[in-house]
């Protein structure tokens, strides 16, 4: 296992925990997006560029748009 892989594994672990421990949904979304980018980098470093591309598209685009709109819709009048 190379140094880059070890660093990315640790970062993914740290950000994965940070996603769970984020209290406010909006903050959680941004932590989750960062987590998705790190996960994509990890996939890339592990020689799986196809999976990395899917993760970038879904984790940093599709999920944030849906969650943001849902948050807008549900948090009004509060």
């Amino acid at each position, binding site marked *: *296992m190379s140094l880059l892989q070890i660093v990315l594994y640790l970062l993914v672990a740290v950000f994965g925990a940070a996603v769970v421990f984020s209290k406010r949904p909006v903050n959680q979304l941004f932590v989750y997006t960062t987590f998705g980018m790190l996960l994509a980098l990890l996939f890339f470093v592990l020689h*799986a*560029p*196809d999976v*990395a*591309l*899917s993760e970038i*598209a*879904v984790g940093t*685009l*599709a999920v944030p*748009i*849906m969650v943001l*709109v849902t948050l*807008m*819709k549900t948090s*009004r*009048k509060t």
Partner: protein
Amino acid sequence: MSPRIRTVVYLFSAVLTFGVLMYASGGLPPFGAFSGPYTDFVLQIGTLERSVYNIPTAVNFDFRGFDTLGEEFIFFTSVAGVLFLFSAVKAETQQHAEPMESERARGQSGAIRWFPIGLTAFIAALGMDLAAHGQLTPGGGFQGGAVFGGGLACIYLALGLPAFVHAVKKETMDFLEALGAFSFGALGMAALFIAGAFLQNIMPLGQTGATVSGGTIYFLSCAVFVEIACGFAVLMLVFLKQTQQTEEDEG
């Protein structure tokens, strides 16, 4: 259950789970040394028998094409479900659904409005590139479609919702998405009737390394690209329309 008992139960199960996981991971093969025969087999015949350099694409659209059919229809059904749910919401709030010109889009400078339009073209081209060369380089129908559909979001960011609604015609996108899903199944059925096996690679494989090569793989990838790109566009359209209704409800 008192907090004390809860803590004891938690600690007990946590230690137990940790122990079992540690014991199980001791039996794993060393890092990067998975010794399944499937990997070597696919790597060997992928290029020789299917004229494909990017083996994951060959697995997705040929060797395990039937799994991909299932995944495409999971996506298709999810989009249909979302559309169904939001059409019910729309009927409830019909009186608020008048299109309103975006104030934000009018107040922006020219550079901020037009730079993302160029970006949209760039991202759309990147998505098509990923999908068209899926058999040569990493990528394929799903990745390309998701990038293409996502790039359309720049239209919304630059020009606001009315422009996005204008650019992404819902009926056209619905039709194209269904056409992509249908084409996947139709190619599979055609193979069933011509060659006797569902999703068998029936088309000429072409020259390895050419843009159109890999036989059916290339066309299945294109079908998935159309389905995913249009599915993402429709999803964003119905979700972003919800923000418009929220703004109007508040205003």
